[in-house]
C-alpha cells in the first residue's frame, strides 16, 4: 500500500464553461516528497490544487490520490489530507482553540483525542499563548499558522498548501518555512503552490513550472536552473540610453539576453569576467549586479514573462 506514488495525475483537464484553467497536466509525487507548483497568478495552480484535494472533479484525465480514485472515494481521501487554502477560512468569532477543535469534529475525531492534538499543534505552531483569544485579534502570520495547525488536526499523510506565505512579512514567512521543514522531516508529503521562486527553492525537492494551465518544465530546482539557465546572471541598468541600441551592443557578451523594462539580464557563466569585458569595451552601466541564476530566470526563459508582475 505504501509503494507507488502518493499522487498521480495523467492529462488532467479542468474547464469552467469557456475557460480552460488546467489543460492536460501530468505529474506524480512520491511519499515523503515535497513537491511544488510554481507559476504566476492565473496559471491554473489553484484549480489543480482543488482537484488534488479531492474537492473538485477533473473535467477529464485520470487522478489517483493515496491510491484511490477521488470520483468514488472523495470523503475517504479527504479524511487523510490536510488542506491549507489560499485564504484563511477561519471562524473569526471563535477562539484559536475552538477553531481547531470544531474543525476536527468534521473528521469524527473523538473529543479526548482532539483536545490533546489541539494542545500539541498550538505548541507546534507557536500559538499556545493565544489559544483562548479570538481569531479576529491575530496577526496575518498567526492566522496562517493556525490554518496550518487546523489542517494537521487529522494527522494527514499529504499536506496541500496553496500560496502558504503570500501576504506575510519576511519574519513570518521564515517561521512558517521552518515549521514546514519540520513536517517534511517527520515524513509528511507536502504539495505547495507558490509564485515566489525563493519559497519554491527553499521548500521543494521537485517542482513543476506552470503557465497558462500547462506544465512547461519539471525537475528539482537546481536541475531546472542548470538546464534552463546559465550559472550566473549579470543585471545591468542604464540611464537614458536607447535600450534597442544597447541590446545589440551587449549581445556578444552573453549566451542570452533578456531585456526587461528597467534592466538587462545577461546570462553568463562567469559574471565578474563579463563585467570586466564590458568595461574594456567601454560599456558603462549605471549599476551592475552579479548573482546566481534562480527559478525566476528559468521561468523567464520558459515563458518570456516574470513571475510577479
Amino acid at each position, binding site marked *: 500500500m505504501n509503494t507507488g506514488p502518493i499522487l498521480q495525475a495523467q492529462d488532467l483537464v479542468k474547464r*469552467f464553461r469557456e475557460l480552460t484553467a488546467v489543460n492536460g497536466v501530468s505529474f506524480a509525487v512520491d511519499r515523503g516528497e515535497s513537491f511544488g507548483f510554481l507559476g504566476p497568478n492565473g496559471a491554473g495552480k489553484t484549480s489543480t490544487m482543488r482537484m488534488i*484535494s479531492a474537492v473538485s472533479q477533473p473535467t477529464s484525465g485520470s487522478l489517483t490520490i493515496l491510491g484511490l480514485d477521488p470520483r468514488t472515494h472523495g470523503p475517504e481521501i*479527504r*479524511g487523510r489530507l490536510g488542506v491549507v*487554502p489560499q*485564504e484563511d477560512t477561519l471562524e473569526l*468569532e471563535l477562539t484559536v482553540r475552538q477553531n481547531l477543535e*470544531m474543525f476536527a469534529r*468534521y473528521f469524527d475525531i473523538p473529543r479526548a483525542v482532539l483536545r490533546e492534538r489541539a494542545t500539541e499543534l498550538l505548541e507546534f505552531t507557536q500559538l499556545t499563548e493565544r489559544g483562548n483569544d479570538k481569531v479576529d485579534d491575530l496577526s496575518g502570520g498567526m492566522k496562517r499558522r493556525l490554518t496550518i495547525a487546523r489542517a494537521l488536526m*487529522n494527522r494527514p499523510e499529504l499536506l496541500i498548501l496553496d500560496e502558504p506565505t503570500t501576504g506575510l512579512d519576511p519574519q513570518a514567512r521564515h517561521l512558517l518555512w521552518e515549521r514546514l521543514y519540520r513536517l517534511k522531516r517527520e515524513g509528511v508529503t507536502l504539495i505547495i503552490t507558490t509564485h515566489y521562486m525563493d519559497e519554491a527553492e527553499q521548500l521543494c525537492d521537485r517542482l513543476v513550472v506552470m503557465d497558462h494551465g500547462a506544465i512547461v518544465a519539471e525537475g528539482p530546482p537546481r536541475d531546472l536552473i542548470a538546464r534552463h539557465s546559465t550559472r550566473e546572471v549579470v543585471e545591468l541598468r542604464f540611464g537614458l540610453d536607447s535600450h534597442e541600441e544597447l541590446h545589440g551592443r551587449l549581445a556578444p557578451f552573453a549566451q542570452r539576453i533578456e531585456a526587461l523594462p528597467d534592466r538587462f539580464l545577461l546570462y553568463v557563466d562567469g559574471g565578474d569576467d563579463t563585467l570586466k569585458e564590458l568595461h574594456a569595451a567601454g560599456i558603462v552601466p549605471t549599476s551592475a549586479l552579479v548573482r546566481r541564476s534562480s527559478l525566476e530566470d528559468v521561468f523567464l526563459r520558459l515563458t518570456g514573462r516574470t513571475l510577479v508582475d
Partner: protein
Amino acid sequence: MADVLNTSTSWPRWQRSWWYHARYYVRTWRGSVASTVLFPIFYLSALGVGVGHLVSAHTGLVQGQTYLHFIAPTLLATTAMQLGEGESLWPVLAAVKWIRSYHAAASTPLEPEDILIGKLAWVATRAVATGAVYTAVIGAFGALQSWWCLTLPLLAGLIALAFAAPLVAYAARSQSDGSFIVIYRFGLVPMFLFSATFYPVSAYPGYLRPVVQFVPLYHGVALARAAAFGQGSLGAIAFHLAFLVMMVAAGLLWGRRAMRRRLVD
C-alpha cells in the same frame, strides 16, 4: 504518521455539520435566549391584550375566538419564518463567500449535501426549540384549546425549513447581499402582514382570497391556528402541509445544486 480514524460511528456525516452549526451558535449567541422568552410576552401583551381590547369592543369575537387567542398561534408561524430567514441569507453568504467556512468544510470528508442537510437540520432544531418556548407562552395567554397544540413546535420546525431551504439555496448562489434586503422588505415583511395573520381571510375582497392561497406563510398561519384550536378540515390541513413540504423539497433540490456549484466545481 497517518492514523485513519475509523471510529465508524453509525451517525451519518451530515450530523457533523449539524453539530458544528449548533456549537457555533452556542458559542456566539448573545442574549437570544432571553429575547426568545420576552418577545412573545411583549408582543401578545401589546397586540393581543391591547389591540384586542379595541377589537372586542367593536366587533366582538373573531371566528369564535377573542382577538388575543386569534392572533396568538400566528406568532409562532411568523417567528418560525423569520428564524428560517435569519439563519439562511447572510450567514450562508458569509459561509460561502466572506468567511468561506463551508469551503473549509468541503475540504474535509463532508460532501456539499452533508453541509446543506446539517445546516437545515440545525435550523429545524432551533425552530423546534423556539417553537416549544412560544407554545408555552401562547398557552400561558390561554390560547391553546386542543391537545393538537403539542404539534406546534414541530410545525415551527416545518415552517422554518420551508423558508430556510429555498433561501439557503438562494444565498449559496449569490455573489453579494444586495438582494437580501429586498427579499426581506418586499417578501417577508408583507407576508408577515398579509398572511391572514391579524384578521381572517374573509376580511379580503373576494377576488383577493384565492391569491392568499399562494402566499407561503399563509399555510403556516392556517396550520398554527388549526393546531392551537383543534379545528379545520382534514383536506385543508393536508393541503397546507403539502404546500410547506413542497417548499422544503424544492429548496433541497435547488440547494443541492447551488452548494455543489459553489463549493466543488
